[in-house]
């Protein structure tokens, strides 16, 4: 079976770029909550990760 990397943030989706800095993964900026939810859903399905919510306007996709 193919080897996969887990325990890794695959992408960060946020409405507020000030809350995020640096990091080794792409950051997607959304204009509002609705777009953030939609982009997160699409990214999680494409990347095969789980969406987590930091409850401050930042979502991230994590592969467990």
């Amino acid at each position, binding site marked *: *079976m193919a080897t996969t990397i887990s325990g890794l943030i695959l992408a960060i989706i946020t409405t507020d770029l000030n809350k995020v800095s640096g990091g080794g993964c792409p950051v997607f900026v959304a204009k509002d909550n609705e777009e953030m939810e939609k982009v*997160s859903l699409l990214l999680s*399905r494409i990347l*095969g990760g789980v*969406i*987590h*919510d930091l409850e401050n306007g930042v979502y991230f996709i994590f592969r467990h």
Partner: protein
Amino acid sequence: MDKYLLVIISGIVAGVLVRFLVLRSDYRHYPAYPHGYFTHIALGFIAASLGAVAIPAIAKPDYVAVTFLVLAAQQFREIRNMERETLNNLEESKLIRRGNDYIEGIARVFEARNYLVIITALATSATTQWLGIKYAFITAVIFIIIALKLMRGSYIGDIVEVVEGRIHFNGSILMVDDVIIMNVGLASTREKILQDGLGVLIKPKDDDARLTLHSPGQRMAIIHDVVAVLGTKVDMNETELAPMARKNVDTGHLGFFIVPNEPDIEMLIAVIKGVPVLETAQGTTLKSFYGRKAAD
């Protein structure tokens, strides 16, 4: 020769009968295919033959033959490896895995059952040899009862209480009563979980049970068995609905969460109670002096 024939046949019949009776194939037991069945019945037949010819070999007397029988019995250790390998290979393509502890448990049981067959055949043929075929029936029945009752092992239902739990969200944190399960990001996923999800609390009855539930292997076994019966809505790239069992660190009870295909809380509780307690996960702290002292 005729007498030995009867001795051997009685041993083989009793042995194969025991193997057949303990070879169950319900929802969580492997094997599930006719070929798997046949393999184990055939191995059971070989084991029974080994046990059955031992007494005539001694009675003859042919001590070299007895030595070879002991050597042959060693081969049954291979059964454990065979089962472990098969189950491990199947594991890789599973969404919900059995876990190594469960696989090891199953493999051990398969090995032990063949020894049980050998002992049954040995005892039955010995009885036929010295007391006659009538008494052999009694011996065979006793061993069948031992195989079915005493080798049963214990079940989760024996050591815990399982009660329905309320699924709710604390912000983005999914909880079953007071147990934190995980962080769920999407509002739509939260709604789905509240709508279709089931939660139960698994409460250990004593410190041994608490240690048993502490083991991740035991939790994986519980999750695997529940999914095998009730199904799950998890798919390959949609792992948010994955069933989980997390513990309350203070009390040691588990919160179990699943989004099943068949949302039937009573059956969920019944299935959890029917999960075997894994040998490797079994807590035994109350059997030790320090464990008992620490518990009071």
